């Protein structure tokens, strides 16, 4: 009996023009998303390579390591093309310096605001917006549509158990819609390596999880539609209710909750923190200048060279002290701000998770590693590299680059030295965290989606048991 119901459901859906049209549209969009994603990735890689090359090139011919301008870049992530997340909103360039804070600058959208106007068509967008509509379109009249057409009472004139019927309906619709969709998805996946996107086992695992999450998200809207269908007598009513629910879940709730949380939790602005740091830095500078002055007055001697040497030594000492103090202060301020910002993020995302769309988007961007963690990870990697860079510069006696020391005395005459060998510079290599970590991050959202499914499924089940089939 169950098999028969399933069979009937499958045929009812797949044979129709409605299905042909909507499936056609979804298939085209999915393939488009994969194709454009792959091309975007290639362009990003070209840009990245160009930036790295130019960075090296502009250092050639420089004769003093102290005078170089070094920049490091965030390499593009393969899955970012499919799930853009916030990858286009965070800076991709960090100006590397021997000391001081590192801040990523130059996000894709900031540098090319044209892309910020309409943003990108990625797989996540298609799942979140188009597939959910697709689900509603097929599920809204699951029960009350049959009732209106008279086929519901017909079916129950036979000895059909209610629970099997509703189970068959839901599972049948789900299979009828999801299995065909797997075709363009698989074709898209095959396209990726063909179009030159380097996918390793890690990336494939992530992508598979994204697709799984998308499927669960689709199921949420399907079970919701069937549930609403069991709550209303007329299909036009359930459709209206579902469209309103869709508008809220997909478009309104995620945005509004983030903005509401933004105003509920007070986080000091980046400017305030910057100015505190600037003030302290200026204070330390003054202190150091005074110390230098005191030292030169106490240790003045006629042998200029000896005095310069002594001064350099003292200056290095002072600089190290300043670095330490500044480091501690910056650490403290940043920690304070980060704690508040994390609280804000927590509140915002918890509120947003009322909508299954938010859960899906968050899970997908965690898996593709285009969530806010990307920025933190980049900054951490940059800081680690800064140590390496600072050590290297120190070995070249270039760790005071840019610090102009003006004294009274003849300028030192130098012969033209040899240009630096840029190949000596340590390279910045960025490694994203492993897939297992990403999957762990996304588990809560997956769980939430599962719960939504269970809840709507149970709801439909219970309501249908008491549904008036006449």
């Amino acid at each position, binding site marked *: 009996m169950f098999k028969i119901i399933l069979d009937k459901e499958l045929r009812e859906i797949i044979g129709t023009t409605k299905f042909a049209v909507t499936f056609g549209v979804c298939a085209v969009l999915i393939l488009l998303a994969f194709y454009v994603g792959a091309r975007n990735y290639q362009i990003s890689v070209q840009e990245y390579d160009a930036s790295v090359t130019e960075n090296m090139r502009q250092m050639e011919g420089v004769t003093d390591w102290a005078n170089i301008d070094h920049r490091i870049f965030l390499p593009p992530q393969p899955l970012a093309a499919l799930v853009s997340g916030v990858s286009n909103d965070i800076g991709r360039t960090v100006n590397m310096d021997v000391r001081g804070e590192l801040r990523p600058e130059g996000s894709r959208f900031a540098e090319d605001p044209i892309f*910020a106007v309409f943003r990108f068509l990625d797989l996540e967008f298609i799942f979140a917006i188009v597939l959910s509509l697709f689900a509603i379109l097929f599920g809204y009249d699951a029960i009350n549509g049959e009732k209106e057409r008279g086929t519901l009472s017909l079916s129950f004139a036979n000895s059909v158990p209610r629970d099997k019927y509703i189970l068959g309906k839901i599972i049948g619709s789900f299979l009828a819609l999801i299995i065909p969709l797997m075709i363009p998805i698989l074709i898209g996946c095959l396209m990726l390596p063909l179009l030159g996107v380097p996918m390793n086992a890690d990336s494939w695992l992530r992508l598979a999880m994204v697709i799984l999450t998308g499927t669960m998200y689709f199921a949420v809207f399907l079970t919701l539609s069937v549930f609403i269908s069991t709550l209303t007598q007329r299909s036009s009513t359930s459709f209206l209710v579902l469209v309103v629910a869709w508008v809220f879940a997909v478009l309104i709730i995620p945005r509004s909750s983030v903005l509401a949380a933004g105003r509920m939790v007070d986080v000091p602005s980046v400017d305030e923190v910057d100015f505190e740091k600037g003030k302290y830095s200026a204070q330390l500078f003054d202190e150091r200048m005074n110390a230098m002055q005191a030292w030169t007055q106490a240790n003045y001697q006629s042998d200029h060279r000896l005095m310069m040497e002594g001064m350099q030594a003292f200056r290095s000492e002072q600089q190290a002290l300043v670095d330490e103090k500044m480091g501690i202060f910056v650490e403290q301020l940043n920690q304070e701000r980060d704690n508040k910002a994390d609280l804000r993020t927590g509140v915002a995302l918890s509120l947003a998770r009322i909508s299954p769309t938010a859960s899906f988007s968050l899970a997908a961007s965690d898996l593709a590693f285009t969530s806010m963690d990307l920025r933190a990870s980049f900054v951490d990697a940059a800081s680690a590299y800064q140590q390496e860079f600072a050590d290297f510069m120190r070995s070249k006696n270039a760790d005071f680059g840019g610090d102009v020391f003006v004294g009274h005395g003849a300028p030192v005459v130098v012969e033209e030295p040899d240009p630096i060998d840029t190949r000596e510079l340590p390279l910045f290599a960025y490694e994203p965290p492993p897939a297992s970590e990403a999957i762990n991050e996304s588990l809560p959202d997956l769980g939430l989606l599962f719960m939504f499914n269970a809840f709507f499924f149970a709801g439909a089940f219970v309501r249908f048991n008491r549904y008036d089939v006449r």
Partner: protein
Amino acid sequence: MLGVLIEKELKSILQSPKFVATFGVCSLLILLSVFIGINEYRASVAQYETATNWVDQQIAEATTFENLPTRVYRQPSPMQIFVSGVNYDIGRLSQISIEQDVKLEQSAYSDDPIFAVFRYIDFTFIVQVVLSLFAIVFTYDAINGERESGTLKLVLSNPIARGQYLLAKLVGSWLGLTIPLLIPILIGLLLVIAFGVPMTETDWLKLVTLIGVSVLYFTFFIALSLLVSALTRQSAVSFLFLLVVWITLVLIVPRGAVMAAGQLVEVPTVAEIESQKDRYRADAQGDLRATSNLRFQEMMAPAQGFGEAERRAFYTANIDLYTEETNRLRAEMEVVIEQNNRRVNENLRNAKAEQERLAFLLSRVSPASAFKLTAMNLGGTNTSMKNRYEDQMLAYRETYNSYIETRWQQEQEEQEQLLASQRAGGGRNVNVAGSGNQAIDTSDMPRFVASEESIVEVFLASILDFGLLTIFTLIAFAGAFFAFVRYDVR
């Protein structure tokens, strides 16, 4: 007859439960977007004021004019409440100094990526996405729904011209949907006044125009739904078709067009440009160092073989001339570097402008793009916002830099005099430059004031999109007319 038909249309819309529900939702969303917009605006203003106060304070506490850098911020504008555009994507501030070029950095989204996760909700978004859907949900069965329920042949069995009937449908639907929506919009405007948002006359004019364009956009979707309804026999089919068209026009075409243009037109990355500029500067500075070293050697050549004291005396006698020349060379170098920066930036801008032209041309196939683009023009948050601000900041930088230079010269002269009197007084004080401990007088410092775009420019830019939307609407309605004239009403 027309009046009766319009009245019938109005009644059937206003009295349906569908209307109450969807109108309720739309009003709620319009008010929500305005309320959120106002809150965000006030938060931006608070942040702006804090930041500029800090900058002023820093300058007030400065003790020397040497290389006194500053920052300028973009001031938030009330129109951003309604059209956020790229406001949160582009940088909020630029450093102003002699060495650095002007560049907008630290966008709101890059500082606080949490807001980038789901982005903003503004009035334009509600109109572009939600209201267009609303229009479709109401008008998709305007013709074929009546046919299905049998009322179409009933009405047309009376002596009514088909054109008249269709006109009544259009006017009735339009009145029944648009007029009620003006209520939450007016309440939204009242909210703006109530919260004390400082709107200038120009702002009000722009806002009213925005509302006008929104109405036109909404009308297009009514006309489109009528058209599709008159082309199909079953309302379920017209709805499906309209949904697909809606997804294509509102969600797909705009993004697709920009992405296509991005792939068709190549633009150098900012990183490449920055590195190019750095290299040029490094080369120029290297040259300057070499030249000044050479000069110094030439200058000191006659002093070869002198004793320590004589050498020092010779040095003191000639140092001023040397310093003067070095300064002159440095100034020349800065000019050349500046010219190169301008040139490089110009090239980048031209490439980007070309890409943008293509992108927006392609995207204007969709009325949703035309609407959004014109809304951004009116709100002042379009893609040229970045260039506009950077240009103004550049002009300010020139004024500021020349002011700093002049005052620095003055300060140096004063220090010279001080040094001379100290030396005359004896002692072996070694002075470290810039160690004055009094605050400098900055009361006559030039301030950055951003000027608004001229209203004429804004409206001229919007004419294209306004016209496009009108044409789209007229075509849709004409199509509906022709389709209905041949419609089988049985």
